[in-house]
């Protein structure tokens, strides 16, 4: 018997480009579709959220300052690296999803990869489509452009391990936002595997930060953080989402949640330039036209 002991992966949080355990030192067991133990995930703390937001904040200007072409290439690179690690993602999806077939896992993985490609292509197009010249009644040049809103908190949906996360994350960062993601509490491991992919894909440190742990503990510090400009509560249940929105209101943080159509994750309706726009601010610049 040529038995070789497998090397199990330690799933760590992804903050500021580094894989770290929680400052609290805690972890929680993650079980698979059949109730089998898969791994221990980090049980992140409010301080981890704080650190992740700080990291996202400090990297935001630089990320937004990259050329659109560069951001597009980096998102495409994410797809490339995911493609090369397809089997790993399929396995993550399969073991985390109740009643999932290999075919379904492969389909989810493929859709997630394709979603990166789709949004990669928008990087240098969405400002053309969403902004433009405004013909004002006066001697002025007037141009509106969508700009990233800043730091976006994303509460990832729970229903599938990979595709919903990618569907919410890609439109956020393509415009130059940075993100703090609370991974699905139930199936966080694919999120960490995605983080490993991001780390290999030229995504600058801090652009995406992924925290794992208990929602009840992590959503409030994220929603209440003053430095979070926009909050995607797609992964919150209604009570949790309402509480998060109440907190967000204190600092006029934008609150966004996936529509019913967007929750058909495999459909084309789940992807849209207007979803990029939802995490942008329209800036309008006026200048006189004179000799």
């Amino acid at each position, binding site marked *: 018997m040529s038995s070789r002991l497998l090397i199990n992966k330690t799933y760590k949080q992804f903050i500021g480009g580094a894989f770290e355990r929680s400052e609290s030192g805690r972890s929680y067991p993650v079980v698979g579709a059949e109730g089998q133990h898969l791994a221990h995930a980090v049980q992140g703390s409010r301080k981890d959220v704080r650190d992740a937001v700080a990291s996202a904040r400090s990297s935001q200007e630089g990320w937004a300052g990259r050329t659109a072409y560069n951001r597009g290439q980096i998102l495409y690179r994410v797809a490339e690296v995911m493609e090369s690690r397809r089997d790993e993602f399929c396995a993550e999806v399969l073991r985390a999803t109740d009643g999932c077939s290999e075919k379904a896992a492969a389909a989810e993985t493929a859709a997630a990869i394709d979603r990166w490609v789709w949004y990669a292509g928008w990087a240098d197009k969405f400002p053309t489509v969403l902004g433009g010249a405004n013909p004002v009644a006066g*001697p*002025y040049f007037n141009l509106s452009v969508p700009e990233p809103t800043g730091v976006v908190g994303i509460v990832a949906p729970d229903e599938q391990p990979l595709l919903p996360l990618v569907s919410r994350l890609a439109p956020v960062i393509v415009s130059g936002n940075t993100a703090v993601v609370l991974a699905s509490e139930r199936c966080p491991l694919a999120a960490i595997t995605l983080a490993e992919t991001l780390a290999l894909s030229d995504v600058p440190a801090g652009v995406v930060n992924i925290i794992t742990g208990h929602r009840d503990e992590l959503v409030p510090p994220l929603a209440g953080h003053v430095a979070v400009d926009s909050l995607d509560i797609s992964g919150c249940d209604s009570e949790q989402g309402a509480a998060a929105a109440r907190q967000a209101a204190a600092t006029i943080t934008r609150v966004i949640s996936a529509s019913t159509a967007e929750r058909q994750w495999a459909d084309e309706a789940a992807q849209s330039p207007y979803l990029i726009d939802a995490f942008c601010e329209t800036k309008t610049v006026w200048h*006189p*036209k*004179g*000799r």
Partner: protein
Amino acid sequence: MVFGVLSPNASLSITSPILGRVTDLLAVDAPVGAADAVAGIRITPVDAVGLEQRAASLCTRSIKTSSKAAALDLAVRMMDLTTLEGADTPERVQALCARARHPDAADWSVPPVAAVCVYPELVPVAVGALADSSVAVASVAGGFPAGLAPLEARLAEISWAVAAGADEVDIVLNRSAFLSGQYQKAYDEIAAAKQACGSAHLKVILETGELGSYDQIRRASMLAMVAGADFIKTSTGKIGTSATPPTALCMAEAIRDMAEQTGRAVGLKLAGGIRTAKQAWHYLVIVGETLGSGWLTPERFRLGASSLLNDVLMQRAKLRDGRYQRREDFSVD
């Protein structure tokens, strides 16, 4: 921040110690803003749209009825009654001078105008006709209206006009030199003209309609003022574009900067296209709001016009009689 203060005389001399610096800063690529303060003069850029909006807004002011009569009289007293035609004859100039003394034959309470403006050849006629009056004689000179006669000839023409009795001389900026970037040359010529004027007042016509932008108008205004102009003037009246509210505002702002930065008060003359009393009021408002009431005097503000006078007189008569007037009843000179 300390601005250097030019004494009035310093800027009159061609050998002014600041000459070099002045022409440096007038250069096309001269830095604007703080760097100019070294020479004591700032040439502020002009935003066309903002300037035009401010001018338009000033033109919506309404003057008090009781002030209107005084404003109309002031407009008359600020007027340079002008005839600059090749067909001008001694008879025509004499008629004009008679109007200048008593603008309204039917109402001798109307004050005389500031000056009569003619070609040099007709200066002696005007001098004779205006003897014993307060009306000054102004002469265009210096190769008016192009200003491209040889410099010696232009200076000689100025000297001739002054010798013939002109109190004021209206010359043109050398746009050929100015627009080709030869600011030193343009400056030197004005300074030389100032010398040739002696005690006569020098008005420098910028011909703003040919300068292409308000920035250039502002630059030309500063150049002319620093070179010694007693007045800066908009136009010859010989091209399509002449005085406009934004042009007047642009030049008034330059004059304000000159006064602020050097303590020297330069006058403003608007010419061409001013035909109605209403326009004259607008210009009074622009100058009054920008430069203060200190400029609302013929010593510092002139309106060069030929057809304006009748409209002012009509409005004056309307104020007096309360009836609108018939244009044909006013002088056709």
